[in-house]
C-alpha cells in the first residue's frame, strides 16, 4: 500500500474511533462502550476462574513439591488451538440450552479462555514458590514456623513478583483471545473485527484491534500498579532514595569497621 493509502487508513480508523455515534448503542447496532464492557466481563471472569484454580494449586505444588507433573500437564494445554476448541465445545454444549439465552455460547468461550489463562498462572506460581531460597525456608522451619505459616508468611510474599508476571501474561493473552467470543455469536470487541472483516469495513476492523490492544495495555498497567503496592520493597529492590544515601554512609562506616586491622 502506498504511503498515502496508509496515512488515509490511519485517518479513517481515527475518525471511526472518535465518532461518538460508534460508542452509543442504537436499535440496529451495539456501540463500542457496551462491547468494551462485555469484553472486560469475559476477560475478568476467565482470569478470575483461572486464578482461583491455578493460584492455590501452584502454591500447593510449590510448597509440597508434590504433583509437579500437573505443571507440565497444564503447559501442554498451551498448544491447544483456541478457535478449534471453541467450535468443538460449542457444538457439544450449545444444543443443551434453548430459548433466549447465550449461556450455551458463554460457557464454551470461558472454558477456552480459562484453559488459556491457567498455564501461565500455575507455572509461575509454582516457579515462584520453588525459587524461594532453601536457606530461607530452612530458617523459617528452624525457628518453629509451621507449614501454613511458612507458605503464607514467607513463600507467598517471596514469590509475588513471579505470580504477578503470570497473572499479567494470562491477562494479556485472555484479552487478546477474548475476541474469538465473536466467532460464536457473542459480543466483545471481537465483534468489530469480525464484522469489519465481513463487511470489508477496514477502519472498523482495525479500530476494533486498536481497542483490544489499548485494553490489554491498560489492564497490564493496572496490574503493574497493584504489583508495586503489594510486593515488598525488599524483594522488588525499590529501596527508598533518601534512606539509601544515609544507608550508604553507614554501610561505608560498617565496612571500614569490619576491615580495620585489629
Amino acid at each position: 500500500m502506498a504511503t498515502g493509502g496508509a496515512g488515509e487508513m490511519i485517518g479513517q480508523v481515527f475518525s471511526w474511533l472518535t465518532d461518538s455515534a460508534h460508542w452509543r448503542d442504537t436499535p440496529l447496532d451495539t456501540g463500542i462502550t457496551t462491547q468494551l464492557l462485555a469484553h472486560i466481563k469475559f476477560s475478568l471472569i476467565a482470569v478470575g476462574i483461572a486464578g482461583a484454580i491455578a493460584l492455590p494449586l501452584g502454591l500447593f505444588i510449590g510448597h509440597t513439591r508434590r504433583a509437579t507433573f500437573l505443571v507440565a500437564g497444564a503447559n501442554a494445554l498451551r498448544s491447544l488451538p483456541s478457535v478449534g476448541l471453541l467450535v468443538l465445545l460449542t457444538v457439544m454444549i450449545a444444543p443443551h440450552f434453548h430459548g433466549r439465552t447465550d449461556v450455551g455460547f458463554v460457557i464454551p468461550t470461558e472454558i477456552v479462555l480459562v484453559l488459556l489463562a491457567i498455564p501461565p498462572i500455575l507455572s509461575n506460581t509454582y516457579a515462584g514458590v520453588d525459587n524461594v531460597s532453601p536457606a530461607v525456608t530452612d530458617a523459617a522451619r528452624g525457628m518453629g514456623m509451621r507449614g501454613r505459616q511458612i507458605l503464607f508468611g514467607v513463600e507467598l510474599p517471596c514469590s509475588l513478583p513471579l505470580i504477578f508476571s503470570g497473572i499479567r501474561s494470562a491477562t494479556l493473552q485472555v484479552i487478546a483471545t477474548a475476541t474469538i467470543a465473536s466467532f460464536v455469536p457473542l459480543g466483545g470487541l471481537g465483534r468489530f473485527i469480525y464484522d469489519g472483516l465481513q463487511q470489508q469495513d477496514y477502519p472498523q476492523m482495525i479500530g476494533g484491534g486498536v481497542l483490544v490492544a489499548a485494553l490489554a495495555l491498560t489492564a497490564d498497567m493496572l496490574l503493574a500498579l497493584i504489583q508495586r503496592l503489594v510486593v515488598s520493597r525488599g524483594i522488588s529492590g525499590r529501596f527508598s532514595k533518601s534512606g539509601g544515601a544515609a544507608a550508604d554512609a553507614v554501610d561505608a562506616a560498617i565496612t571500614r569497621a569490619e576491615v580495620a586491622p585489629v
Partner: protein
Amino acid sequence: MIRFESASKTYPDGTVAVDALDLVAPSGQITVLVGPSGCGKTTSLRMINRMIDATGGRILLDDQDVAKVEPAQLRRGIGYVIQHAGLFPHRTIIDNIASVPLMLGTSKKEARAGAMDLLDRVGLDQKFARRYPAQLSGGQQQRVGVARALAADPPVMLMDEPFSAVDPVVREQLQDEFLRLQSDLGKTIVFVTHDIDEAIKLGDQVAVLRVGGHLAQMATPAELLSNPVDDFVANFVGRDRGYRALGFEAVGQLPLEPEPTVSLESSFAEASKVATDGWVLVLDAGRHPQGWLAIADGPSAGSDSIDRGRLRRGGTVASVDGTYRAVLDAALSSPTGRGVVVGHDGTFAGTLNATQVVALIESRAGAAS
C-alpha cells in the same frame, strides 16, 4: 545441657549418617562439632531441633527427650543460625529479628524494641532497622541472623557453619564478636564447622567426627592440639600444631624494648637521625603504628617529607596482652625482626624480637616441667 545417647540416623537406602553418637554439650558452653564433609556433623546438629529425626537412640535437652516434644514447639525454644543467614527478604531487618517473639505472641511494639537492642548487641547501627536484607553485606546479614536467633532469648543455640560464607577478614571479626557476645550471654551452643581453626578458636570443647558419623575425639582445643587420640585426629587437626597451640596462652608481662619513632609529619632528615639499623617506626598523630620506614628508600620525591607510600606495612601488630602466637607472629612478620606491640588503646608500646619471644616460650616450658 544437650546429651546424645547413642543417637543414630540411618536413611531408608541404608546410608548411615550418624552412628550411635554419644556426646554431651554442657550448659553455658560452646561445643563445636567438626569433621570432614560427610561426617554427619550437620545431621547431628539438626537432630537436636528435629529438623531431622533420629532413627535410633535419643537426644535429651535438659533431660527431656526431644522426640517427645512437638517439633515446631521444640524449635521455638532453640535459636537456629545457618550458613547463609536465611533472612526473610520481604521483611525489614527489625521485623526479621522480631520474627520469633512475634510468633510467640509478643506485642509488635515490645518485639521491635527488643529487636533494636539486639541490633546494638550484634554490632549493627540502628539505621539498619528499616532496611531490607538485600541492602546488607553478607557479614551484616549474618549478624542479623544471630540477632534473630537470640530474639526470644532461648537458652540453647544451634549454629550450622554460620561464618563460612563470608570473607576471612569479616569472619575473624564475627568470630571475635561472637565470643564476646557469648561471654555476656552464656548460652548452651552447639556449633558446626568444617574449619578446624574455627573450631579451636571458638570451642570450649571440640568434638571431631569422622566419616560415617563416628565420634573420634572430644576434648578441649588445647588438649586436641597437644594430644590427638589417633592418626585421623592428628591429620585433621593438621600441621603447625605446636605453633597454633601458642595461640591459647597470653604471655603476661612482656619485656618490651624501647624503639625510636617519628610521626608522619616529621621531616625525612629527622627520621634518618633517629633510625636504628636503617629503619624507623612511623606513628600517626594518635601514636598508632603506621609502618616501618627504610632510610635507604629516601624521602618523597622533591621534598624532605616522609613518603607514606613507601612505608612497609607488612608486619602484624600484637597487643600487650596478646598470646605467644600473636607476639611471635608480630616479630616474624616485621621487616626489621622487631615485632611491634601496642597497648589496649592501640598506641605504640614497644618492640620485641623473635629470639626474645622464643626465650619466653622456652622459659614457660621449663617452668611447666
